[in-house]
């Protein structure tokens, strides 16, 4: 069932000198199965908007229809907020700051417990959620969240939301502050959750190159209004207008535009790195009469098949492991090194030595 937002308007500090309209007559329909990206610069209203969807902010004007519930400014009938919030999982910016319990297991259990579920059900969901975010349940469940790395903490925080098994997941700046590898892990996790957990996903991000990697539709907020709502491939017809609003456009679009200025037209609807590679190869083939497979350009920041990645790292990157299929022994064997990285740390050290010596060799050659 789609989520329908009608004529939503919201003003902060109304009737004071600090009055600010954050949302002005917003109309939007979010369909089941949407992978929706929301962009807009700081203060454009996008955060205020998503807080309405799971009932953190009550509408002042307008209404929201969501899973048989109707959110309106009226005081009655009372909305079943528990049903709403178990249906819409919200992952805030830097969610790891909200970890509070003394073990990972307790932290992840907080949500489902508060939904009033039985102990067995809670325990089962917690295990499932922790495994789903790519962590080893047995190895992390009794650890304090604060002992984990930044990327791992963030995944624990996301597990806490997933454990409520929301039909829809909203993530606000999910990769902010992570290193490139941690970013890649979270992006893969989000894609994985789309198919295995929450069929509808909304992501807010400042990084447009990140959004274009998975969104099928992009909504642009500017100055309390929705100014564009387009399929991802169509949005960047408005590159100029987006840039005037102070928004970034994908790097591939920038390259295409720069080439067009120099008289080389690669075509429309080039948004991602893969699109760009394909268009360049096609054009190259035409100009040089070559016959390169137009899908030969592979843009992978981290190639899973490369041998320099340890098996743990490959697994972590892909997040494609199916923990259910593993034997206890497998888990035990990996337990010692997967989380604390003792083994992989050593491997890293040696690979880094290799890297360092390679660089020295290169210097020598030069």
């Amino acid at each position, binding site marked *: 069932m789609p989520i329908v937002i009608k004529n939503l308007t919201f003003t902060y500090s109304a009737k004071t000198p600090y009055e600010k309209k954050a949302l002005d007559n917003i109309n939007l329909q979010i369909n089941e199965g949407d992978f929706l990206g929301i962009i807009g*610069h*700081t*203060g454009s209203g996008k955060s205020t908007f998503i807080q309405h969807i799971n009932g953190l902010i009550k509408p002042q004007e307008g209404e929201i229809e969501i899973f048989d519930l109707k959110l309106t400014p009226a005081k009655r009938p009372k909305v079943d907020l528990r049903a709403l919030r178990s249906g819409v999982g919200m992952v805030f910016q*830097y969610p790891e700051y909200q970890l509070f319990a003394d073990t990972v297991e307790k932290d992840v259990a907080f949500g489902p417990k508060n939904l009033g579920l039985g102990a067995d059900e809670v325990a089962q969901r917690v295990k499932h959620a922790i495994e789903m975010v790519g962590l080893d349940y047995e190895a992390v469940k009794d650890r304090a969240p604060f002992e984990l*790395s*930044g*990327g791992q903490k963030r995944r624990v925080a996301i597990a806490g939301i997933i454990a409520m098994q929301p039909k829809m997941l909203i993530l606000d700046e999910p990769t*902010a*502050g*992570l*290193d*490139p*590898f*941690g970013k890649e892990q979270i992006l893969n996790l989000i894609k994985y959750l789309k198919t295995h957990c929450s069929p509808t996903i909304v992501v807010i991000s*400042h*990084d447009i*190159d990140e959004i274009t990697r998975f969104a099928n539709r992009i909504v642009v907020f500017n100055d309390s209004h929705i100014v564009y709502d387009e399929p991802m491939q169509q949005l960047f017809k408005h590159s100029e207008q987006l840039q005037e609003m*102070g928004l*970034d456009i994908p*790097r591939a679009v*920038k*390259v295409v535009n*720069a*080439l067009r200025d*120099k008289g*080389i037209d*690669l075509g429309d609807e080039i948004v991602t*790195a893969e699109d*760009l*590679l394909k268009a*360049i*190869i096609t*054009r*190259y083939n035409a*100009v*040089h009469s*070559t016959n*390169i*497979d137009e899908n*030969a*350009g*592979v*843009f992978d*920041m*981290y*190639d899973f098949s*490369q041998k*320099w*990645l340890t098996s743990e790292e490959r697994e972590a990157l892909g997040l494609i492991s199916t923990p259910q299929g593993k034997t206890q022994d497998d888990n035990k064997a990996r337990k010692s090194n997967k989380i604390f990285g003792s083994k992989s*740390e050593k491997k*890293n*050290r040696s*690979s*880094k030595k*290799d*890297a*360092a010596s*390679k*660089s020295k060799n*290169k210097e020598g050659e030069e």
Partner: protein
Amino acid sequence: MAVLLDNVTYSYNINDTHRIDAVKGLSLHIEEGTFVALVGHNGSGKSTLAKLLNGLLLPTSGEVKIFGNSTLEPNKIYEIRKNVGMVFQNPDNQMIASIVEDDVAFGPENLGVEREEIIRRVEWALSKVGMLEYRKRTPFKMSGGQKQRLAIAGVLAIKPRILVLDESTAMLDPQGRSEVLKVAHELNKQDGITVIHITHFMEEALGADRLIVMNGGRVAFDGTPREVFKNYEELKAIKLAVPWETQVAISLQKAGVDVGDGIVDQDELVERLCRLL
């Protein structure tokens, strides 16, 4: 020599029996006036290195010298901290006063600087980061980029010769990031301040004179950004990346489209493509 690290090791106790070397036998020197970008994945030791520079952490072995003064000498530590200003990741954690100019004055006040001189320094520091018109306002309603520039002004008022930005752009939107980066480059060019910029954004390293890559508590690569980005396979192996345009060029190269190597930014990529297409 602005910064000299001689065989520095720093170990954390993680429990009674285990220690982790966050920085291992690191030797490094940085000339005054250099703009250094420092990258490494989480846990590579770069933030530990930053904290060793102004004596927030002291080496377990080896020595850190700032303009010849060792952080191990207790009577030099104030001078070292005056010379090494640090700005951290979260803009909200670094504001202490409710008015911008009070916030900037906090540092020099604590050093016992004369009132007239404090006023001069506050004005100078705020104008350096382009925030002079906000001097009577409150920092709490500002954007992340403005708050970080204010944090830089607070550090400048102490008149440091070295500015360390410890992931100061990580929490900002693209506009805020470019504001902070611009200020850092201006301070480096116009005032000769040595800048050590720690970041996860590879493209932010492009403008630097020198790029140092940390891994496992040691230096994995050290050179101009252009030189370092040639080692893209090795960089990925230590959980880092190369700029997007470099990655595109590499992917094309692998597919058989000869764009040549050494591409690090959009202009270079577009120029090479123009010749080919």
